[in-house]
């Protein structure tokens, strides 16, 4: 049994405590930013930013909604990045927690290939090609602590625990939220260990909320990836 996050975006106020807590726990440097005409900052995930609250304004039926999406790695149950890397010293999964972990050896991988493999556009590379992303605060979790982002969340948006518990909490909240929001849904719940509840169409929050819009989700993405992987490996050997 693995762990999972349940992220209830209907409760998110965009305070970004999670974003700072992540930087603090991982001791990541701040990026030099400027106000770009939005309160969302830094502009993207990066080698030193694993968690980012996306902010979008949308108007439906004349009603304004300010949507917040605390973006992070989904810790996929069958991670395409791991499948693509085929190198357990660089990308591996902690079977106890379900955390998908990138090590310093990711430097030896084809970074762009790993990034391309991710249906959620999560991994980011350093100048030397080393890859980084959310590690589920695996060090904290294996020592009985909550991930830093969950610990700091004051609104109940960020939840963490046994996958069974999180799934059942997610379904409970979905049932409640669905009463008011027709579009409410759990995103890719069967494929990932970071389950988001959204109350509006996923595309309104951010481009990469779902594995892919429409009928083919992560499973199909994975199948395609597996079919193509011998080809990628061949390419790598050539290089």
């Amino acid at each position: 049994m693995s762990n999972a996050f349940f992220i209830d975006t209907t409760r998110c106020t965009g305070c970004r405590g999670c974003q700072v807590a992540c930087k603090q726990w991982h001791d990541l440097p701040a990026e030099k930013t400027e106000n770009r005409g939005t309160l969302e900052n830094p502009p993207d995930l990066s080698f030193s930013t694993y968690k980012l609250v996306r902010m979008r304004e949308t108007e439906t039926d004349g009603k304004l909604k300010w949507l917040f999406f605390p973006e992070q790695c989904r810790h996929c149950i069958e991670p395409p990045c791991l499948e693509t890397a085929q190198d357990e010293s660089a990308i591996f999964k902690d079977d106890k927690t379900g955390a998908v972990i990138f090590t310093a050896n990711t430097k030896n991988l084809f970074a762009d290939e790993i990034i391309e493999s991710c249906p959620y556009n999560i991994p980011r590379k350093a100048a030397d090609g080393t890859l980084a992303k959310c590690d589920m605060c695996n060090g904290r979790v294996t020592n009985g602590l909550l991930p830093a982002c969950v610990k700091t969340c004051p609104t109940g948006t960020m939840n963490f625990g046994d996958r069974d518990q999180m799934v059942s909490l997610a379904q409970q909240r979905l049932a409640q939220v669905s009463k008011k929001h027709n579009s409410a849904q759990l995103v890719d719940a069967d494929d990932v260990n970071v389950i988001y509840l959204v109350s509006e169409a996923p595309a309104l929050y951010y481009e990469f909320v779902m594995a892919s819009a429409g009928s083919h989700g992560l499973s199909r993405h994975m199948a395609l990836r597996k079919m193509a992987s011998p080809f990628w490996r061949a390419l790598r050997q050539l290089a």
Partner: protein
Amino acid sequence: MAIIQQLLGNMGVAGGGVNALRGESNVQGSTDHCLLWHIWPGCLKTARASNTTLAAYNEKWTPSSKDPLSANWWQNYPKYSVSMLKSFFGEKADVANEFGYRWLPKVDDGAVYSWFDIFDAMYKETIKGFFAWGQNPACSGANANKTREALGKLDWMVNVNLFDNETGSFWKGPGMDPGAIKTEVFMLPACASVEKEGSITNSGRWMQWRCRGPKPLGDSLPDGDIILTLGEKIKEVYQEDGLYPEPIANLKWDYATDGTYDPHKVAKEINGYFVKDVTIKGKTYRKGTLVPSFAFLQADGSTSSGNWLYCNSYTEKGNMAARRGQEDAVNNIGLFPEFAWCWPVNRRIIYNRASVDAKGVPWDRKDWVVYFKGEEKDGKYVSRKWIGDVPDGGWYPLQNPDGSWRDDAKHPFIMRKHGHAQIFGPGRADGPFPEHYEPLECPVEKNFLNPQMVNPTAAVYATKADAHATCDPRYPYVGTTYRVSEHWQTGLMTRTQSWLMEMQPQMFVEISEELAELKGIQNGERVNVTSARGKVACSAVVTKRFKPFMMGGLTVHQVGIPWHYGWRWPSTGKEDSANLLTPSAGDPNTRIPETKAFMVNVVKV
């Protein structure tokens, strides 16, 4: 708000009342202990010049009611004022010198000494010295340009703060000529709240004792140590050759242990002592022991209490505010009576007897606050017992179970003269009822709700730095100010934090898509926001969250700016305070500044 809550019966009940959202964790505590000019500790009145003697002062501020059912709690006023004076002056306070009352400064009748008035006086060069203690007025007060100019007219200023700030460095700020400024500035480095021991009191009046976390860094000190040391030195100087030295020389100032400030000694002083053996209802309390609660305070100089509201917080049983009991009270509504301590006398909900009917039975049977459970005999209550919260006075209910009225009961609103809630509010400069007025600066030439345009009793100031412009085409848009979660107050503790600056790096102005189009402003572009008083450079955030609205047939655009920035940090020096724009206009009672509605322009750079 208070009127609405009263009309709804939401006083003294669980989840009722009006909870002030404070800008800082200890606003309640600091105002309880005399942050504001018009009240002494414990809401006692600051003495007016016309209160020439202690007797006259007590007479003036002690109310009386002819209703025998009114507790009229303020009838105890002299006990609290005399006990406070005994705390201030200790053994030096006696009947002959009116317990030191004559040594205290009195304010002129009718004069106002608020924040605005202090800086106005500095600007007019009638105040020449200034302690900026844990504040950053060069950014935090409305009309900051006037404040900054005023600082330049001082002889000296002492800046007590964690870091250098826009106040301490005003003389090298934007538009300043350091060579022309004579103000001598001293910096006393203070440590942060987590680096010292003491208490905070939250908006629910819970006084919570906090231990010190990390030790203060470098030369920084807890402000208790700073003020104690300053006090000792000032006393020395006054004793040598002070002009009228008594008020300073006679001040009780024994709050050090082993040469450093002892917060427990101050907390005990605030609670109060028996200063001689006192016998009350047959029980003798020894000199030097702590007073159990304010019901024991005396007007004859036999007790001390720095703040009667806090009497009961630090007793012979120990430091009540340091308690961390996890048990809820019997009514299970989240009172947690043994977690910390709440004034008065650990009562968690004030006026809680308003939550019961005349027979002492709660209106709300589920989430009740207090419940009368005295014994009953032949339709009459014969013993007194309340359960739940500490009742606001333990008297019998107004009625017996058989419906007969008792003459030994009290009305529930015990701090009001006649024991009742009041909708009519006497004593307000613009009372008795609330009224809508337009702000000092507004986009319309007419108040659509009544013929009086602006509040005729509002505080406005008359120097050339107090310009304002209403219905002026140069400033056509409504401006408002607010906070963001990434920064705190003037940003001194957050603008120096790289992770927070990463998220909110620059001063910005939020404008509607419609206004952006009208002005040809691109999202993210730098613009200037101007008012009759100043100019601030901002990044434009074009948002759907602002919309133009109609007012009297006129399309009105509104823009919003956060107030946390200042030129000192970030180091570019290009971000500055929203208060350069806001007007120094205040409400007539408390001088709350009108920083939420004023007129601006937004112009491309």
